[in-house]
């Protein structure tokens, strides 16, 4: 799964959805892989507009990326192709292949296998 994806995910348990602790979900034991994808600067710029930057910083620090700017790039910074390529690499090309996503509110763990996260809940949590 892409790093970008996690910015649009929260816990599937109903009582967690309104809790700030459930977003973002936290990676545990993540195994990463790199997948080459076509670089589309407009797409990255559009996604930057939509990104929750604080959540993105939490996610990337959990995955071991140390070069993410503290502030969301805006204005002229968006014309910096090196920056956009870096973000493309992190947001789209970095795949979490195995591991878990953990809710910070209820502590439920969602498994990621072969790059796909499974959010089906056990009966007692539905």
């Amino acid at each position, binding site marked *: *799964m*892409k790093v*970008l*994806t996690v910015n*649009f*995910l*929260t*816990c*599937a*348990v*109903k009582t967690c*959805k*309104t809790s700030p602790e459930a*977003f973002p979900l936290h990676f545990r034991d993540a195994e990463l892989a790199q997948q080459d*994808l*076509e670089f*589309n600067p*407009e*797409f990255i*710029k*559009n*996604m930057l*507009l*939509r990104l929750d930057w604080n959540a993105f910083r939490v996610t990337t620090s959990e995955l071991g990326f140390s070069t993410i700017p503290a502030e969301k790039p805006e204005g002229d910074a968006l014309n910096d192709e090196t920056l956009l390529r870096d973000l493309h690499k992190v947001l*789209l090309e970095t795949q979490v292949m195995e591991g878990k996503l953990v809710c910070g509110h209820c502590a439920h763990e*969602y498994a990621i296998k*072969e*790059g*796909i*996260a*499974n*959010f*089906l*809940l056990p*009966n007692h949590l*539905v």
Partner: protein
Amino acid sequence: MSSRDGSTAVTYEDEHVHHVYEQIASHFSSTRYKPWPIVERFLQGLPDGAVGVDVGCGNGKYLTVNPKVFILASDRSQALTKIAAQHQPHAALIADNLSLPHPPSSFDFAISIAVIHHLSTPARRVEAIKSVLELLKPNRALKQESPNGSVSQSPDSSDGRALIYVWALEQKNSRRGWDEGMAQDVMVPWVTKSSRGTSSKPLKRNSAVEHSETRQSDLSKGSVTAQSRKGESLTPSDSSQTFYRYYHLYRAGELEQDVSDAGGTVIESGYEKDNWWAIIVRNSEP
């Protein structure tokens, strides 16, 4: 099926919807490659950079329509999700449409195509529409009061909107021949041809049509004989398998009613090739 309670419905759908899709995934996928025009138009009309969800994405055939938006697609079937995950730049995950793992009120658009009709009680169908509506950015449209006192909403083009698509009861020209007045809860056969019992082998495209979804006379009379069918049966030749999926066929006006019960407003709706569809927005909070 209105008497069915929630947990019975879950077990029922597990056996007669989810299990079946898992079994027929690759054959199903090989027959599902052409997007329906209404869905295509909806997705192509989105602004670049819009972010949305595809709830019950199946093999992800709608993920190929517009690469300038970002779609988080989900399905209960692991086998179908795997196929859907191949479409860039989008994302695919395994999730239940009544427990979606997304923050509420944050998406520009949603689609749920040929999904809601698999839920086996009226309450769960309304709940499924509600789950989709909740994800949408709230409708910020001004309420307009007309001289006669009725309130109408005129949604802004930037409001989150969803496209819902369900199978219609009224399809007398289809090979199934269902029409007005017939039973709405039906078991629909799916036949996979397979060599030596390996049902997961994809077929060649030219043979991959729902060729054997013939109408069952007992079903058209209204008896859902689920108990006698364990979801699959082998023919004597052992070369094909028949799976039965549960459907609730929508009659005219029923989708609009469900949307209204779910707290949504229909801004456009219609009939396309044996299906009812509606483009909907969330009602403003009172």
